[in-house]
């Protein structure tokens, strides 16, 4: 069994073709003593098919809280007794956030809004924000505004939005237990329109939402089918007031197994550390993940929670001799 997993991982290294669902599941079920070799081969796959560079990104919430959707992990839903209040970010503060991000050497700045989908007010705010950032900062602008219409997709393309984030969050079979106000397939529809528009597709999810390991493997294969440019991997950080407030944090070794498994499923994709890594993996685990298939990070703070200081991650990348992707290489 163990030899079969390693042989399958070596085939990914040679061919650049991701594991199938059975292979991903085998990695997710691998015994502890096999974790280090799996992370090593996942790292070699990343180095061969993606290269040594690490893509650095900052994110900011343009519209926080008050969301009409009921994503059970999210403190920004207006349907839960969360302490997060609704707030809008003004344009000067948005530009300042972009400057803070660019100062870290990041090439990506993602503007996020807690909405089902953008309304006219949000699109206007985004339009003004993108224009103001372009005047002040040299950085790729990404957006994450929920479900889109074709007209909104077209407008984002016209604005020059480089990448669109819309997470599927979890396996299709588990999604109805996590979200009841919209479907996984509605999210897929937005992703299809984004792909067809020519924008880069950013789509990942959150591990530790109560899914089984089989559903974790199912999710990896569904992402493989989507073939996004980037997969952000979040680990649940249980938020007060949400239905998943008491959900246990993912065990560190299970998180590392998932990193190896997702890299081996998606050998050519940007695999980004996103929220929850601090509480799930800590400093040591962050390092292990970067040596186990991860090749992108969100630096600084998240949308409603705080991250490690950007300098800590940048020092870690320097220590690991992993160059930060330059803007010229990203364009």
């Amino acid at each position, binding site marked *: 069994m163990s030899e079969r997993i390693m042989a399958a991982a070596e085939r990914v290294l040679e061919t650049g073709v991701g594991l199938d669902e059975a292979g991903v599941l085998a990695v997710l079920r691998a015994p502890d003593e096999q974790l280090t070799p799996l992370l090593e081969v996942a790292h070699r796959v990343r180095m061969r098919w993606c290269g040594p560079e690490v893509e650095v990104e900052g994110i900011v919430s343009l519209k926080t809280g008050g969301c009409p959707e009921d994503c059970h992990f999210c403190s920004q839903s207006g349907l839960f007794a969360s302490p*997060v209040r609704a707030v809008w970010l003004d344009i000067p503060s948005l530009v300042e956030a972009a400057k803070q991000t660019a100062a870290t050497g990041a090439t990506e700045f993602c503007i996020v809004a807690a909405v089902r989908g953008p309304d006219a007010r949000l699109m206007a705010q985004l339009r003004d924000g993108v224009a103001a950032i372009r005047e002040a900062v040299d950085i790729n602008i990404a957006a994450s505004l929920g479900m889109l219409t074709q007209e909104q997709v077209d407008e984002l393309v016209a604005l020059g939005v480089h990448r669109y984030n819309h997470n599927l969050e979890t396996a299709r079979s588990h999604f109805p237990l996590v979200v009841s106000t919209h479907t996984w397939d509605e999210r897929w529809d937005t992703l299809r329109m984004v792909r067809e528009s020519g924008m880069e597709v950013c789509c990942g999810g959150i591990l530790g939402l109560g899914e089984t390991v089989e559903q974790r493997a199912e999710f990896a294969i569904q992402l493989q089918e989507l073939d996004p440019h980037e997969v952000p991997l979040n680990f649940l950080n249980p938020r007060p007031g949400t239905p998943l407030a008491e959900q246990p944090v993912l065990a560190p070794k299970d998180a590392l197994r998932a990193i190896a498994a997702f890299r081996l499923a998606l050998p050519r994709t940007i695999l980004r550390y996103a929220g929850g890594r601090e509480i799930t993996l800590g400093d040591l685990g962050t390092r292990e993940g970067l040596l186990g298939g991860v090749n992108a990070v969100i630096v600084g703070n998240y949308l409603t929670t*705080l991250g490690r200081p*950007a300098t800590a991650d940048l020092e870690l990348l320097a220590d690991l001799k992993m160059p930060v992707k330059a803007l010229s290489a990203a364009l």
Partner: protein
Amino acid sequence: MSFCDRCGGPVGEGDHTACLAARQLEPPRFCPHCRRRMKVQVLPAGWHATCVEHGTL
């Protein structure tokens, strides 16, 4: 009286050790003076929190 800025409970009642630990990776959510929920904006390199009664922390 003052209030825990994470859970909003009175600081003199109950154990807020977990709140203190969580606050390492979270901004404050409740005004420590009046326990009103604050408007909080997280930015890549900081945050600011404003109480309608007591202003910005």
